[in-house]
Structures are given as structure tokens and as C-alpha cells.
């Protein structure tokens, strides 16, 4: 009889535990990281009687949580990738917004500046038109500076996000290590501490949204490792990450592995390979793959623009009649010594652009190794490929990198380096912030050309000459050069005489690339052949200071004997807009990156940013849907279904009622038995 009571009682207890578990599930149905629990009932062991083994009710073996390690790991990995892409995408969208409408911004400012110069060439002596062109220049400079500031702000925002993420990673690592300890203690009783297990899984899930990790489960709990195997948690010990300025760009932070919390040892910087996935991975890859290249690209456009305009302006003559100076200033390559350099190193490294019109867009690192008597290696950090190597410091005759490995940079250094020292070289990174208009004087626009070539007014032949051009390093002598023509007595050609003494004259016939060269004798009498049937471009060079140098003009048509052509300085030529026109025509110059106009280059820049943002958007969408699918799979195992719990409630309620009935029956039996004696 007592057996029946105890069986009924065990059933009541089981029903209560079942109802409690269902209640727990219902109450936690919206709790993040909660895994659905179920009471596991087992039959109590039977008692031997001669009638066989009689059962002794039910026992509750344990309360088990539903957990699929496979699905949880898959979901964590997917979320890790997803948050990496989301972090990159958010920043790429910001960058794309920064570029803004493709029909306004820097491209249209460049076009306006060149249009303004066309107006200058049409009215070279109008101060108002020149002032407008200069204002256009200022607008462009403002836009480029603003872009530079926005890049700086984005870098700052990345740095802040990295710092926050690293501090959260450290918090979660510490939590996991502590939970490992608590779980080990709590499990000693033999029952799993479901609540602690849920918390630890949740911590791992949060951690993997910050950085991609590998979780290894063993007897001492979860061990967590970064992509390259650096540990964050091993058993009950956690390890810290830290942020520190990047050796290649001090304005950027990199993540480093510090070891035991509070350790004073130098933190080891972690590369992109170690930091894959999670917000941190997304930030690191955004900076490396999108932000830095885009800034370099825009910096290269700004550098090239300034160089092209300055070079052409130098070939002109200002309203005051002086040779043109620079209209824009822009900073040169930035060289930064690594923070990890040996403190006793006193070397200084400098870099200059060899061709500022077409500057390199990659970044470089010069590193020194004391192996085999000292070797300097230049590495392209954008592509991670070595560029050049040398064992002798460079000199004028032996530049570094050598011409065979030309990258558009010339690097020199002095002082002592120690093994392992490195120097980061950013050719155009500073260009955006340092871009400025060099003058506020509208007359500094060199609209006129310094030379004027003209045919004599009493010429009787049909020959015409162009007005003349100069090239870099020119001089136009203050004494006019008068050339006179003598027709050949035999044949069709003729000769020009009167070139400056001791100069060199090159005559290039259209369609030919090899000029005929004449060295003019000291008495200036050397005749230079001219063929009226082809016409020719004539270039005068001279190494004597003050003599006409690097001046050319083209002659076409047939001069008559005695015809004269005068080459002279273009003095007080306020109405001359030839050089302004040449400046304006830089808009179609394809000297950037070998074959691009500045507009092309800018449209490539816009295109690459747009592509990055829209690719990331697509990846983000597909990764999000993967996460959604995996979440519903994982939740289908581990989540709470309220209908199920409603059914469980009813089931356990009925179980409770039925067991009560068993006890009531037992009691009634007992009453019946007692009644016998009455």
C-alpha cells in the first residue's frame, strides 16, 4: 500500500518538475541565448517480489537543455562573417556618401577650374575673369581638403570602433574563462549547470560577432583561439588584445596580442590573417582594402593635378611679365619610422616623387636587415610584394629603387639603421590635407607665353610660322633673333640663317621622329635646311646662360629669299592667352597613370568606391539571409515553441491529476481496509 503512495508521490513530483520546466521555458521564451529545457524522466528501479519486479514510480533524471554544437558553431561562424561584412558595408556606404553625387564634387570642381582658365585665355587682361579662375581653384582646394578631413574622420571612427571592440573582446574572453571555472565547479555534483552553459555559449556567440574565433571544447571547458592560433581563452586563463598605432601608418590603429592581462611585454601586432571575421575583421579589411587605396587614389589625382597645372604655369608669363610660379601646393611623400625601430637607430629616410604628374598609388615599406653585411628591402605594402633590394646606400648615380624597378619614387637615407628597422612610405597620403592654392594674386596665372615668333611684315613668300612654344627650362633671349631665308638656286629647298651663335637647332619634319640637328657656329653663320614641301618644326636649344633655349615653332609654306622671321620675348603681352589655353587644355591631357585624363581617373575612383559599396551590399544581403536560415535551424532545435509548452503544461497537469488519483485510490483502498474492522 505504501508502495502505491510513494509511486503516486513520485508521479506528483515528476509532474511538478515538468510544469516548472515548462514554466521556465515559457518565461524564457524571448531570452537571448536561452536553450529550451526538458525534464528527463526515468523509471525508478523495481523491487523484487516473487510476483516479479514491482515498479517504484518515476524519478526525474535531469533537466536537459536542447543544444546542437554543430548548428551553434555554424551559426557563430556565419554571424562572424555577417558582422564583418556589416562593419565594412556601413563604412563603405559612408565613403560612398562622402563621394556623393557623381555630377558634383571634385570632378566638377576640376572641370570648372579648367573652364575658368578658358575664360582667362579669352580675356587675359581682365582681373575679374582671373579672380573667378582663382576662386574656382580655391573651391577645388576646399573640396579636396574636405575629402581629406572626411577620410581622417573615417579613420578616427574606425580607430574608435576598434578600441571599443577590443575592449569588449577582452571582457568576453574574461567572462568565458570565469564561466569555465564556474561550470567545472558546478558540474562536480554530476548535474549540468544549464544556466551557466547558456551564458557561456552566449558569450562565445557575442565574441564571434566581434572577431572570428575557433572554439575547442575539452575537459577544461571552452578554449578560444584567433584565426592564426593565438589563444584568447585556454581553460580558465584568458589572454588580452590591445590596440596600438600601426607601424605603416601612425594615424591608424592595429590590433595586437598582449598575452596575459596586465602583461608589460611588447604586444605583437596581428595581421589581417589573424583577424578575420567579426567587426574587427571587417574594420581591418575595410581600412586595408578600401579606405587606404581610395585615399591614395584621390591623393594621386590631387598630386597629379597640382603638378600638371604648376608645370604648365611655369611655362607661361604672368600679367606682370614674370615667369609663372606654382599655382597649387601639395605635400610630398610621407615617411614614418616604425615605433618598433631600435631606439639607437638615428637614420633619416626621405622620399621624393620622380614624376609628380603620374604618382604611384601604392604604399611602401623600407626595411633593413643586417644579414649578409646589411640589406635594404623595399616592399609594396598594398600588394605585399618586394620591389627592390640593395646592399649599398643610394647616391645620385645609383638611385634607389634602380631605374629597372622604377615605381615613381626616389628614396634616400642617411644615418645608422639596426636589424629589423622599417620605415613606412606613403607617396600621396598627405596630399588631400595639404592641397592648397599657392597664391591669392590673380595676376599670378601665367596666361601669356614668354615667346613670340612672327614672320616679317615685308615678307613676299607664303610661309607662315606658329607663335612659338617653350618647354621646361626655357630661356628667351632679350635680343631678338631674326632668321632670314635664302632659296636654293638648285632644287626646291632653302636655308635659314641667323640662329643664335653656339646654339643647337633641331629640325623635325612632320611624320618623322628623328630630327636633323645643326650646331650653330660661333659667328652664327651656319645655315639650317628647310624644305617648303614638308614644313618643319624647329627647336632651338642652348647651354649658354641667357641665350634662347628650349623654344620651338613650326614653319609651313614657301618663304621667298630675303624673308625674315623674328623670335623674341613676348613683352607686355597682356592680351596673350596662349598659356592659359594650354592650362585649360590640361583637362584632356592623358599624362596621369600613363594614359588617363584627370576626369577618367576620378571616374575610376568613383567607380571603385561604388563597386566596393555595392558588392558589400550584395554580400551583406546574402550573408544576412544565411544567418537567418541558420538561426531558424538552430532555434528549431534550441528555441522555445509556446504551443509545445502549452501542450506540455496540459500533459503535466493531467499527470499531476492522475497521480493525485493514484494517491486518492490508495487512500480509498486504505479506508476500505480499515472499514473491515468496524
Amino acid at each position, binding site marked *: 500500500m505504501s508502495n502505491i503512495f510513494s509511486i503516486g508521490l513520485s508521479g506528483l513530483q515528476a509532474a511538478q518538475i515538468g510544469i516548472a520546466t515548462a514554466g521556465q521555458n515559457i518565461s524564457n521564451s524571448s531570452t537571448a541565448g536561452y536553450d529550451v529545457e526538458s525534464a528527463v524522466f526515468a523509471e525508478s528501479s523495481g523491487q523484487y517480489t516473487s510476483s516479479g519486479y514491482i515498479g517504484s514510480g518515476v524519478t526525474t533524471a535531469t533537466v536537459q537543455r536542447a543544444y546542437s554544437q554543430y548548428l551553434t558553431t555554424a551559426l557563430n561562424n556565419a554571424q562572424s562573417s555577417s558582422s564583418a561584412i556589416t562593419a565594412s558595408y556601413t563604412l563603405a556606404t559612408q565613403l560612398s556618401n562622402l563621394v556623393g553625387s557623381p555630377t558634383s564634387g571634385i570632378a566638377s570642381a576640376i572641370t570648372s577650374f579648367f573652364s575658368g582658365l578658358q575664360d582667362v585665355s579669352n580675356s587675359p587682361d581682365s582681373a575679374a575673369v582671373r579672380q573667378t579662375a582663382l576662386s574656382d581653384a580655391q573651391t577645388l582646394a576646399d573640396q579636396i581638403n574636405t575629402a581629406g578631413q572626411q577620410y581622417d574622420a573615417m579613420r578616427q571612427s574606425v580607430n574608435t570602433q576598434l578600441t571599443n571592440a577590443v575592449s569588449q573582446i577582452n571582457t568576453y574572453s574574461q567572462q568565458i574563462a570565469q564561466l569555465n571555472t564556474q561550470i567545472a565547479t558546478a558540474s562536480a555534483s554530476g548535474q549540468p549547470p544549464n544556466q551557466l552553459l547558456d551564458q557561456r555559449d552566449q558569450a562565445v556567440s557575442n565574441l564571434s560577432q566581434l572577431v572570428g574565433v575557433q572554439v575547442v571544447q575539452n575537459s577544461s571547458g571552452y578554449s578560444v583561439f584567433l584565426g592564426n592560433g593565438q589563444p584568447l581563452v585556454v581553460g580558465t586563463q584568458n589572454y588580452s588584445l590591445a590596440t596600438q598605432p600601426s607601424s605603416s601608418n601612425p594615424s591608424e590603429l592595429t590590433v595586437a596580442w598582449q598575452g596575459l592581462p596586465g602583461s608589460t611585454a611588447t604586444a605583437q601586432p596581428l595581421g589581417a590573417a589573424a583577424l578575420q571575421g567579426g567587426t574587427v575583421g571587417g574594420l581591418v579589411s575595410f581600412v586595408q582594402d578600401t579606405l587606404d587605396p581610395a585615399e591614395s587614389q584621390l591623393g594621386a589625382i590631387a598630386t597629379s593635378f597640382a603638378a600638371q597645372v604648376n608645370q604648365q604655369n611655369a611655362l607661361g608669363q604672368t600679367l606682370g611679365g614674370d615667369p609663372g610660379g606654382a599655382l597649387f601646393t601639395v605635400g610630398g611623400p610621407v615617411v614614418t619610422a616604425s615605433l618598433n625601430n631600435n631606439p639607437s637607430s638615428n637614420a633619416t629616410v626621405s622620399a621624393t616623387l620622380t614624376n609628380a604628374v603620374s604618382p604611384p598609388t601604392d604604399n611602401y615599406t623600407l626595411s633593413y636587415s643586417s644579414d649578409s653585411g646589411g640589406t635594404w628591402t623595399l616592399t609594396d605594402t598594398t600588394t605585399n610584394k618586394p620591389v627592390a633590394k640593395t646592399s649599398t646606400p643610394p647616391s645620385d648615380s645609383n638611385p634607389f629603387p634602380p631605374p629597372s624597378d622604377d615605381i615613381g619614387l626616389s628614396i634616400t637615407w642617411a644615418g645608422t639603421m639596426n636589424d629589423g628597422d622599417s620605415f613606412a612610405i606613403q607617396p600621396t597620403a598627405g596630399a588631400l590635407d595639404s592641397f592648397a592654392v599657392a597664391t591669392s594674386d590673380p595676376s599670378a596665372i601665367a596666361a601669356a607665353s614668354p615667346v613670340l615668333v612672327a614672320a616679317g611684315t615685308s615678307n613676299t613668300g607664303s610661309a607662315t610660322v606658329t607663335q612659338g612654344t617653350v618647354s621646361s627650362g626655357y630661356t628667351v633671349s632679350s635680343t631678338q633673333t631674326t632668321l632670314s631665308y635664302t632659296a636654293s638656286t638648285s632644287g626646291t629647298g632653302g636655308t635659314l640663317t641667323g640662329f643664335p651663335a653656339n646654339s643647337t637647332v633641331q629640325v623635325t619634319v612632320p611624320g618623322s621622329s628623328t630630327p636633323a640637328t645643326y650646331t650653330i657656329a660661333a659667328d652664327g653663320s651656319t645655315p639650317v635646311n628647310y624644305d617648303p614641301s614638308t614644313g618643319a618644326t624647329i627647336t632651338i636649344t642652348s647651354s649658354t646662360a641667357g641665350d634662347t633655349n628650349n623654344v620651338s615653332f613650326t614653319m609651313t609654306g614657301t618663304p621667298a629669299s630675303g624673308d625674315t622671321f623674328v623670335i623674341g620675348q613676348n613683352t607686355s603681352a597682356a592680351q596673350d592667352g596662349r598659356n592659359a589655353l594650354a592650362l585649360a587644355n590640361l583637362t584632356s591631357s592623358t599624362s596621369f597613370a600613363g594614359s588617363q585624363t584627370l576626369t577618367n581617373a576620378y571616374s*575610376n575612383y568613383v567607380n571603385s568606391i561604388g563597386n566596393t559599396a555595392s558588392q558589400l551590399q550584395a554580400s551583406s544581403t546574402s550573408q544576412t539571409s544565411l544567418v537567418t536560415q541558420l538561426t531558424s535551424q538552430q532555434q528549431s532545435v534550441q528555441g522555445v515553441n509556446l504551443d509545445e509548452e502549452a*501542450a506540455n503544461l496540459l500533459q503535466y497537469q493531467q499527470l499531476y491529476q492522475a497521480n493525485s488519483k493514484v494517491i486518492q485510490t490508495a487512500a480509498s483502498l486504505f479506508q476500505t481496509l480499515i472499514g473491515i474492522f468496524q
Partner: protein
Amino acid sequence: MRIATSQLYSSSVATMENQQSQILQVEQAISSGVAITNPADNPLGAAQAVQLSATSATLSQYSTNQSTALTSLQLEDSTLSSVTGTLQSINSLMQEAMNGSLSDSDRQAIAKQMEGDRNQLMTLANTTDGAGNYLFSGFQSTSQVFTNKSGGGVDYNGDAGQRLVQVSGSRQIAVGDSGASVFMSVLSVGSSAVSAGDAQNTGTGTIGGVTVTDPTQPTNSDNLKITFSGTADSLTYTVTDTSASPNTNLTTDQPYTDGSPISLGSGMNVTISGTPASGDKFTVTPATAAANTSVFQSIDNVISALQSPTTGSAAANATLTNALTTGMTQLGNSLSNVITVQASVGGREQELQALQTMTSTNSLQVTTSLDNLTSTDMTAAISQYTQLSNALTASQKSFAATQNLSLFQYINP
């Protein structure tokens, strides 16, 4: 499959949020009319838009340049028309002065009239454009272009520069011509050699125009001199080429017949009539010689000749006639030079007008392409908007229906 209840809510909410963000995007595109607000919307389209908007700006600059150039050329064209008119008026005054029956005072009157025309010509040569810049000054702008020289003629204070304006991608057109090329030069081909009588002549010989018989002869562009010698009964003349030193005689001591052509080398001849005195000299110089090219100098010479009294002196009359012959030849050469310059200006105007049509067509095409690329396609956007809002309504309705399905609803307490 077993579904976690919380998943029902979160996935419905995520779907609706996603739909709302898409609706917002389409709504923005519709309300702003802009399809590409940043490059991520359409990377390739954004790159094309950069190029197209640069092209569009360049074309509109070309169009501005074309108008500027056309305005300058039209001003030059009308100025040159006035110059031609003035020169023609001077030419007819010279014709009038040739009339032998005029008195000294008649010629004084003609000289006065000619001075008026000459001043008008000076004003035209110093014409300025709207910005106060001289039309015919080359690259110079500060000083007055043409200033009178003492003793007749003018100084040209400009230079040989010619301003170029970029009027299309590959064409720079010259606006304006230098004053030297308009007023101080003559055409090298088609101009007549200038014949003149020496002012010191004492005879009554008058020289006529030069006739070219063989234009290929090199002596045609040389300075030639005809010198008379002998007595009144047997006058002879010698033709000397004075271009090269030493001078060479082309013909020596030929007998002179009144009114018969005198050969100048083998390419030209000239007629001298009347009776020159021994020692009288006549010259024939090429049209392009420095003394013959300045139109102002030519006019001034004629004016000064008209102002000298000739009454009663046959020699003075002959000198005046010679001066008028010289002046008319020079003026004719200058006039055809001005007309040629004007024709070239007219040609450039026509070219510009053709370019204007072409540029505006191109500009229209580029603007249309740019619009197609960067403006919202309203039909597509509105239909997409409708589609998205229908989908959102459906999501909301199905969510409302789904969240109602709970077993707890049916368990009575």
C-alpha cells in the same frame, strides 16, 4: 519542422524592416528625381556620369567660347567693312584729284576731305571692343595701337600676336588680326608693283602703272630705277636693278619715245609719257617693300602732294601726277589686303556658326544621356513602389494572422 515562437516574431519583423527600407529608397528616388545619389547606387553609371558631366561642362564652355569668338569676329568684320568704305572714298578722291583742270585751291579742298577720311581710318584702326581692348593690337593692350608719326605715316605699337580661342576639342580659331597685318602689309601675291617719279624731277615725264608680262621673272621683285640722260632731242634711259650691290644695269641708254613701253628686265614694262629732263629718275619697287605697305603713309604722301601748289609749273604738275599714281597703286594694294583679311574673318565666322550648331547638338545628346543615367525612371520606380508597398501590406496582414495562432487561446482556465 519545429519552429521557435520567438523566431516567428523576429523573422517577420526583419522582413518588414527590410521591405520598409526598400520602400524608403524608392520613395527617395521618386521624390528627388535622382537615381544616383551616391556611387553605390550604380557604380558603372556613376563613373559614366562623371565623364558625361565633364563633357557637358566642356561643351558648354566651348559654346561660350564660340559666342565670344563670334562677337569679336563680328566686330572686326564690321570694322573692316567701314575701313573698306573709307579706303574706297579716299580712292575716289584721288581719282578726282587726277583731273588736270583743278586749281590749287580745289586740290586743297580735296586734301582737307582726304584728311577727314584719313582721321576716320585712324579711328577705325584704333577701334576697341566692349572691354576697352584694341581690336588690332595683337597681344598688347595698354598703349594706343596706331599713333601718328611726325612727317606722315603711323607707328604701330602692337605686336604680331593673334589670339586663339578653343572652340571645339580639336579647333582653336584666331579671333582678331594684328594691326600690322591689316594696315601695314599688302598681299605678296596679286599686288601691283609701285611706280613713282622722283620729287626732284625737272621734266614733265609722268609714269603710268606697271604691266606684268611674265610673272615668273625674279627681277619682278627687285627695286628698279629708270634714269634719263642725253639731250632733249635724243633722250635715252637706263634701267638699273638696285636690289643688289653693286647695281646692275638691265638696259643701258635706250632711246626714249614718248608713250611707248619701257621694258623692266624681261618680266614687266611701264609707260612714261611727257618729256623727262636729263637726270630725271623714276623707280619701280615691289608692292611689299617697306615704303609701300603702310596705308597711312601712302595717304599722307598724297595729301602732302595735293597741298603743294602747282599752278604754272609743268614739272610740279608732273610730280603731282606721279605722286597720285603712286598713291593709287599703293591704296589699291592695301584695299585688296583689307578685303582679303575681311574674307578670312567672314570664313571664320561661318565656321563658328557651323560649330555652334554642331556643339549644341552634341550638348543636347550628352545632356540627354546624363539625364537618362542620373534621373529616376518614374514609370519603373512608381511601379516598383506599388509592388513593394503591396508586399509590405501582405507581410503585415500575415503577421497579424500568424501571431493570433496560439494554443493558449484555446485552453480555458
